[in-house]
C-alpha cells in the first residue's frame, strides 16, 4: 500500500515535471539546495532538518525524494557532497535538478535511517501528499495532518489550499489548516480566531479534540471563542447522538417485529404459544449458513445471490418442520394450551440439541453480501446497510402477511377459525388443515427472521433463545388481535429499549422495560389490540 502511494506520488511529480508546469508559485529552490546539502552530511539530526527543508521547498519531485529516503534509495556521493536518488524504475536521477544521470558516480551510499528520521520522513510525506493528484489521497493526508497538527505542514497546506479546485477536498484542507493554525501558539491571533470559526462549523469530534487542546494561558478572546465553539459543537453532536439512538430504536423495532410476527397468528388461530419459535428462527439462520457454505464451495462468484436462495429455503425448512410439529404433537393437545406450551418447549430443547450436535456449539460464520455491508452517513448519523435492509425486509414481510390474511383463501379461513372455530368447521372449513398451515406459516416466517438475524447476530444454537423472551413480550404487549398489535408492540419495545439504554445501561434498561410491561399487563391483560368476541374468554 505504502509502495503504491509512493508510486502514485512519483507519477504525479513526474507528470508535473514532464509538462513543465510549475506546480506552485511558492516554490523555493534554495530550500531544496539547503536541504540536500544537509542530507549530504549524513548525520541523523541534519537529515531530519533536511527533510523539512525539502518538504518546504515545494519542488515537484520532493515527494519522490522523501519516498526514496524511506526506501534507502536516496544516495550520497560522499566525495562530492552531492545527492542522487534512484526512482522506482531503478534510474538514477540528480536530486537537485531531477534530471536522469546517465553515468552515476561509482561510490554511492544510501542515506542512513533511524526511527526519528523515518517518522520525520513520513510526516513530511503526509504534508507532501496534500499535492497528490488523487483527491481521495489528498483528503486522507489532510486528515492525517489534522491529527498530527504538525506546524511544519503549514506552508504546504496553504499552497495546497490555493491550488485546490475540488470544494470537498478544499474543505478538508482548510480544516487541517485550521487545526494546525489553532494549535500553533505563535500564529497571529486573527488567524487563530478564523481557525476556531472553521473548526466550529466543521463540528466533528476531531474538531472538539483540537479545540480542547488549547492551553490555559491562551489569549482571553481566543479562549472565549474556543469555549463557545466547543459548546456549540457538543450540542450539535448531542442532537446527532439522539438521532442515532432513535435510529437504533427504529432499527431494533423491525428486528423484534421480524422475530415476533410469526407468533401471534398461530396464537390467535390455535391458542398456542409456540415455545419453539426461537428455534425456528435459529433453523432459518442455519439454513442461511448451509446455503452460503454451498455457494462458497461451488459458486463463489454468485455469493451475493446466496440470500436470494436462502430466503425461500429457510421459509420452506422452518415451515415444513412447523407443519410436522403441528401434525405430530400439537394436534393431540388441543384445548390444553398450557400443555402445548410444555410440549413445544420440549421440541425447542430437541431442536437446539440437534443443531448443537450437527453444527457444533460454537458460532458459525455467515457472510454478508457486498451490497449489504458498509454504512452510509447522513450528517452525524451512521446507518449500516444491513440494518436498513432488515427494516425493509421486515416491512415487506409485514405487508405480505397483511395482504395474505386479507386476500387469500387461507387468510380468510384463518380469520374464520380465529373468530369461531366450530362455526367455521360447520361451514366446511377443514380446521385441521388450517391449523397445520397456520402453524407452518408462523414457523416459516420465523425461518425468514432467521435469515435476517443471521446478518446482524451470531449464528449459534442459542440464537433463538436470545430473542424468544423479547418476542413473547412483543406479543403480550401488542396483543394477538391483529398484526398491527405486533407492529406497535415491536416498535415501541425496540424504541423504549434503545432510549433507556444510554441512561440506565443495557441490562438495567431491559429490567425496567420488563417491569414496565408487567405493570402494563395489569391495565390491558390482553395487550393493546385484544381479540374481540365471545370466544375469547374460553
Amino acid at each position: 500500500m505504502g509502495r503504491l502511494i509512493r508510486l502514485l506520488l512519483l507519477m504525479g511529480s513526474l507528470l508535473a515535471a514532464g509538462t513543465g508546469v510549475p506546480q506552485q508559485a511558492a516554490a523555493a529552490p534554495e530550500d531544496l539546495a539547503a536541504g540536500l546539502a544537509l542530507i549530504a552530511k549524513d548525520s541523523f539530526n541534519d537529515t531530519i532538518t533536511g527533510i523539512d527543508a525539502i518538504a518546504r521547498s515545494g519542488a515537484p519531485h520532493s515527494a519522490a525524494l522523501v519516498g526514496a529516503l524511506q526506501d534507502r534509495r536516496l544516495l550520497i556521493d560522499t566525495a562530492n557532497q552531492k545527492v542522487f536518488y534512484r526512482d522506482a524504475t531503478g534510474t538514477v536521477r540528480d536530486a537537485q535538478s531531477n534530471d536522469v544521470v546517465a553515468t552515476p558516480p561509482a561510490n554511492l551510499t544510501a542515506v542512513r535511517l533511524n526511527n526519528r528520521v523515518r517518522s520525520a520522513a513520513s510526516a513530511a510525506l503526509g504534508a507532501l501528499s496534500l499535492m497528490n493528484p488523487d483527491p481521495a489521497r489528498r483528503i486522507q493526508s489532510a486528515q492525517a495532518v489534522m491529527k498530527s497538527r504538525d506546524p511544519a505542514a503549514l506552508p504546504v497546506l496553504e499552497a495546497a489550499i490555493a491550488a485546490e479546485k475540488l470544494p470537498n477536498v478544499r474543505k478538508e484542507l482548510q480544516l487541517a489548516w485550521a487545526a494546525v493554525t489553532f494549535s500553533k501558539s505563535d500564529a497571529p491571533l486573527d488567524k487563530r480566531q478564523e481557525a476556531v470559526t472553521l473548526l466550529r462549523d466543521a463540528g466533528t469530534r476531531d474538531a472538539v479534540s483540537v479545540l480542547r487542546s488549547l492551553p490555559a494561558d491562551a489569549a482571553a478572546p481566543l479562549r472565549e471563542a474556543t469555549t463557545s465553539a466547543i459548546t456549540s459543537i457538543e450540542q450539535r453532536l448531542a442532537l446527532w447522538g439522539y438521532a442515532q439512538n432513535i435510529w437504533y430504536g427504529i432499527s431494533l423495532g423491525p428486528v423484534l417485529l421480524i422475530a415476533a410476527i410469526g407468533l401471534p397468528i398461530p396464537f390467535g388461530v390455535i391458542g398456542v404459544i409456540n415455545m419453539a419459535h426461537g428455534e425456528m428462527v435459529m433453523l432459518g439462520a442455519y439454513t442461511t449458513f448451509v446455503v452460503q457454505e454451498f455457494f462458497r464451495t461451488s459458486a463463489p462468484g454468485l455469493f451475493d445471490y446466496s440470500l436470494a436462495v436462502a430466503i425461500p429455503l429457510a421459509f420452506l425448512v422452518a415451515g415444513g418442520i412447523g407443519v410436522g410439529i403441528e401434525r405430530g404433537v400439537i394436534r393431540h393437545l388441543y384445548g390444553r394450551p398450557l400443555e402445548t406450551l410444555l410440549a413445544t418447549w420440549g421440541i425447542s430443547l430437541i431442536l437446539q440439541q440437534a443443531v448443537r450436535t450437527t453444527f457444533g456449539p460454537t458460532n458459525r460464520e455467515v457472510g454478508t453480501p457486498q451490497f449489504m455491508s458498509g454504512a452510509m452517513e447522513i450528517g452525524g448519523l451512521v446507518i449500516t446497510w444491513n440494518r436498513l435492509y432488515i427494516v425493509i425486509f421486515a416491512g415487506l414481510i409485514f405487508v405480505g402477511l397483511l395482504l395474505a390474511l386479507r386476500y387469500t383463501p387461507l387468510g380468510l379461513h384463518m380469520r374464520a377459525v380465529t373468530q369461531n372455530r366450530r362455526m367455521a368447521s360447520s361451514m366446511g372449513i377443514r380446521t385441521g388443515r388450517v391449523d397445520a398451515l397456520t402453524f407452518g406459516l408462523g414457523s416459516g416466517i420465523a425461518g425468514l427472521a432467521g435469515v435476517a438475524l443471521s446478518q446482524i447476530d451470531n449464528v449459534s444454537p442459542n440464537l433463538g433463545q436470545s430473542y424468544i423472551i423479547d418476542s413473547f413480550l412483543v406479543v403480550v404487549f401488542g396483543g394477538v388481535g391483529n398484526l398491527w398489535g405486533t407492529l406497535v408492540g415491536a416498535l415501541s419495545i425496540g424504541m423504549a429499549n434503545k432510549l433507556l439504554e444510554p441512561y440506565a445501561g443495557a441490562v438495567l434498561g431491559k429490567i425496567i422495560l420488563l417491569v414496565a410491561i408487567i405493570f402494563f399487563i395489569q391495565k390491558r391483560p390482553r395487550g393493546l389490540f385484544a381479540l374481540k368476541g365471545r370466544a375469547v374468554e374460553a
Partner: protein
Amino acid sequence: MITRALLTDDRTGKWFLAIVLGLAVVVPLLHLVVPPSSPFHISTATLALLGKYLCFALLALSLDLVWGYCGILSLGHGAFFALGGYAMGMYLMRQIGTRGVYAHPVLPDFMVFLNWKELPWYWYGFENAWFAFLMVMAVPGLLAFVFGWFAFRSRVTGVYLSIITQALTYALMLAFFRNDMGFGGNNGLTDFKDILGFPVQANATRAALFAASAVALALGYLVARAIVASRLGKVLVSIRDAESRTRFLGYRVEHYKTFVFTVSAIMAGIAGALYVPQVGIINPSEFTPANSIEVVIWVAVGGRGTLAGAALGAVLVNFAKTTFTTGFLAPYWLFMLGALFVLVTIWLPKGILGTLYDFWARRRPAEKSAAKSETVPQPAE
C-alpha cells in the same frame, strides 16, 4: 392429631410421609454410623445429591399446589427458589467473618474486591440466623403476593400469566447478574463456612441438613394437603376447572389465587434456602427461565394435582438427569428431556401417580362410582 385428621383418606400421603421421614432418619445414620467399608454406607457426595433431590421435591410440591390445584402455570417458580437461596446465601456469607480471602470483618469478599466501602442496607440483619430465616420466607412470599395481587386482580390468566412469570424470573436473572446489585454478580455467593455455628462441610452438618430437608418436605406436604383438603382447596379446584363460574358464584377468585400463590412461593423459598448450604453455592443461573420450566416437567411426570406425585417426579427426573448427564450419554440428555416434555404431555397427561390412581380405581369397582363422581367436570364455557 391434625395430621391424623388430614391423612384419614389419604393413603398415598401416609406412605409418602412414612418414606420421607424414614429417609430423614435412615440416610443420616447410614452416612454417619455405618463405616465407609460397608456396602450400605452413603458417601458424602450421595448424601448431598439426595439432599438436593429433596429440595427439588419441595419445589415441585410448591408448584403442584398452584398448577395442579389452581391452574396457575407459573414458569417463574425458580425465581422464588433462588430468592430463598439468596437469603440463605447472604446469611452464610455473613458467617464467614474474617476467614474470607480479604479477611474483612464485615464485607464479603466480592464487595471488597469491587471496592465497596460499607455493607448495603439490604444486607443488614443477615448476620442473625432468625432474621435470615425469616427473610427466606418473607422475600419470596412478598414478591409473590405483590405480583399475584396485581396479576390476578386484572385477570391475567393462562398463557399470558405463564409468559409474565417467565419475564419476572428473566428480569431477576438479569438483575442478579449485575455486579452493582450487591449480590456477587455472576459468581453469586459461595465459599460458605458455618451454618448456625457448625461447619457446613462437616459430615454431621450435612446429615442434619439432609434431615432438615426431609422434614421440610414432610411439613410442606402437610401444609399443601391441609390447603387442598379444606373448603378453600375445593374453591381452588373449582377455579382451576371453571374460573368464571366460580367468580359468578360469588367467590373472590383473585384472593384465593393470591393466597395460594404466596404460600407456594414461600415453600419454594424454603426449598431454595435448604438447597444452598448443601450444594455450597447460589448464583444467578438459578433464575434462568429454562430452570423454572424444568420444574414444571417434574410435576407433569409425577402427576399434577397429586402432591406426592410432584415430589416423586422431581426425584425421578433429577435422578435421570444425574445419571445421563455424566458419561457417554451426556450429549443426548437434552434430547431425552425434550422428548420427556412431549411424550408426557401427550401420553401421560395425568403423570405417573395420576395414571396409577386411574388404574387402581378401575381395579376396584366398589370405589368406581365414588371416583367417578369426583372426576374433573368439563368446563362448559
